[in-house]
């Protein structure tokens, strides 16, 4: 067998290609292979800086509060990550979660349905709503932005019409729906069962994305749709399943949200759409699809939470947190653009 000319002496160009790389280039390659490193670095630096500004920041009680505050957005952002990995976007995350909370709570309180059943039906509403997004994206071939912009209004309207704009209060809520608000102590950290639910959700989805062929196909479809089709991946089936699984995650998040607030209100988590996208983007997942990871998204959600509490403990106006978040989004996307230009 002949060999494809490999042992020939290196040409000038090849020697040039093998030259020592500058530290900047090596950083670029490092970030290219590990996109979650930059949010991790930001989180560590923010943690150190806020601890210096106010030592109370590093106390277990503060960290417990951050985790509780972050849980709902982090969970929604896990679903959002799946969709953004396919080069899509979901503007209806918050609407689906609210619809599911109101559905479960009203079924249980006004409909007299047992708590567990109301919970399951609420999660099912999330699945159906996500599946509807998926059907519109794959059957009508509409851009995900347009589909979810439309369903954002539709799901919000349905939620308001169904609930009559009324919130379901704390005292009426059955135990099964409130379970995710149960406080527990893990070591020195006071958190809730809802935080555990979100952590398990993150671990399970991270496993599925990195270890199963379905996960690999999610990346492939987002990276190059036509190539995926040509190698025999059933692209529409992957997309539909992604939107449906995201809906399932939003449905479970609704449960965590009821536990967190103790109520089901049409006015809750109004910023969820943009907050979830912010977490995904700061976490290093590319809006162009095919690149990113759940761990980055969790780090992204934590960064936003750390900034919120950290700046407030430092005695700074909350608007600085909003400003800092905006800067982080722009920096994160710039880094993504930069590392995508990497060459071997």
């Amino acid at each position, binding site marked *: *067998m*002949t*060999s*494809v*000319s*490999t042992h020939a002496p290196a040409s000038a160009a090849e020697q040039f290609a093998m030259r020592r790389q500058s530290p900047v280039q090596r950083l670029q390659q490092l970030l*290219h*292979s590990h996109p979650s490193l930059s949010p991790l670095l930001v989180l560590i630096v923010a943690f150190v800086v806020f601890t210096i500004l106010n030592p109370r920041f590093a106390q277990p009680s503060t960290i417990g509060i951050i985790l509780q505050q972050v849980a709902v957005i982090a969970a929604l952002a896990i679903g959002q990550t799946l969709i953004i990995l396919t080069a899509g976007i979901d503007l209806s995350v918050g609407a689906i979660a609210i619809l599911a909370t109101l559905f479960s709570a009203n079924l249980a309180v006004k409909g007299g349905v047992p708590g567990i059943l109301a919970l399951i039906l609420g999660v099912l509403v999330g699945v159906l709503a996500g599946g509807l997004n998926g059907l519109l994206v794959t059957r009508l071939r509409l851009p995900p932005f347009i589909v979810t912009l439309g369903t954002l209004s539709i799901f919000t309207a349905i939620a308001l019409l169904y609930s009559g704009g009324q919130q379901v209060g704390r005292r009426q809520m059955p135990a099964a729906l409130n379970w995710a608000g149960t406080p527990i102590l893990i070591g020195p950290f006071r958190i809730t069962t809802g935080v555990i639910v979100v952590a398990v959700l993150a671990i399970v989805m991270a*496993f*599925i994305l990195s*270890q*199963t*062929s*379905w996960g*690999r*196909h999610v*990346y*492939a479809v987002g*990276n*190059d749709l*036509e*190539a*995926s089709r*040509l*190698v*025999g*991946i059933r692209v529409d089936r992957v997309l539909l399943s992604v939107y449906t699984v995201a809906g399932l995650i939003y449905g479970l998040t609704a449960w965590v949200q009821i536990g967190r607030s103790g109520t089901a209100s049409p006015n809750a988590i109004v910023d969820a759409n943009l907050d979830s996208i912010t977490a995904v983007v700061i976490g290093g997942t590319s809006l162009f699809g*095919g*690149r990113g990871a759940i761990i980055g998204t969790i780090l992204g959600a934590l960064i936003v939470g750390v900034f919120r509490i950290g700046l407030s403990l430092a005695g700074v106006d909350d608007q600085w947190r909003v400003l800092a978040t905006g800067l982080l989004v722009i920096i994160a996307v710039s880094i993504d653009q930069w590392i995508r230009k*990497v*060459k*071997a």
Partner: protein
Amino acid sequence: MTAVTNESNEKYRGPAGDLADPSATVLSGRSLIKTFGKVIGLDGVDIDLFPGEVLAVIGDNGAGKSTLVKALTGAITPDSGQVFLDGHEVHFKTPQDARSAGIETVYQTLAVAPALDISANMFLGRERRRPGVLGSVFRMMDKKGMREDAGKSMANLGIATVQNMGQAVETLSGGQRQAVAVARAATFATKFVVLDEPTAALGVKETGQVLNLIQQIKAKGLPVILISHNMPNVFEVADRIHIARLGGCAGVITPKSHTPTEAVAIMTGATTLQRG
């Protein structure tokens, strides 16, 4: 050159153009017709692919070479005519059907996901699972095994410039990407491999490497259909050359029977094949 054996009125198909019994070929197309509205894509084309050969399909733009190959590999369905694989008639409805039958195509776009690594691209769409509970219940991919086998496939084809199967395809050069796509096709094909303009986007050195890969596939005993514009490449690697022209076949020649200049003349209609 070729002996005149019969005096039928059929158009002369050239020195390598006698139609074979489909039972003796890997692939045969007979009287393939495909129309797109009023445009004739294929005008009753016959084609044979013999075991172990490299068959080049050349032709001007719009001559029907891509349409012909698509009709043979399920990307389009011919309006009429027959396709035989190993002597049995087949009816491919999708490229997936052809793939299941052991036909692999390397598309001009390569069909690779740039952000995924080499091993992931080699096994894309047919990932292997780990044995036991980890695979059946937890659906875990056998990443290590796939990586090892991807490395073996590349090494078998003499591709030594790429060592790390965990390297993202987007960090590879154009020729290396081509090598990944060709290695994938060669690994999974059991009947034959189709290469669609594999050298169109490559430089001289990388073109040489791809031609070398084609020889390697042939050496493995797999026949190759090579669609190309590039006469020097075709004359370097092909055993027979099918010349597509105006939706039909202007003849089948060999690199020994004709020169590249003559091939271009036949391809463009400046001359027609004559007996003798």
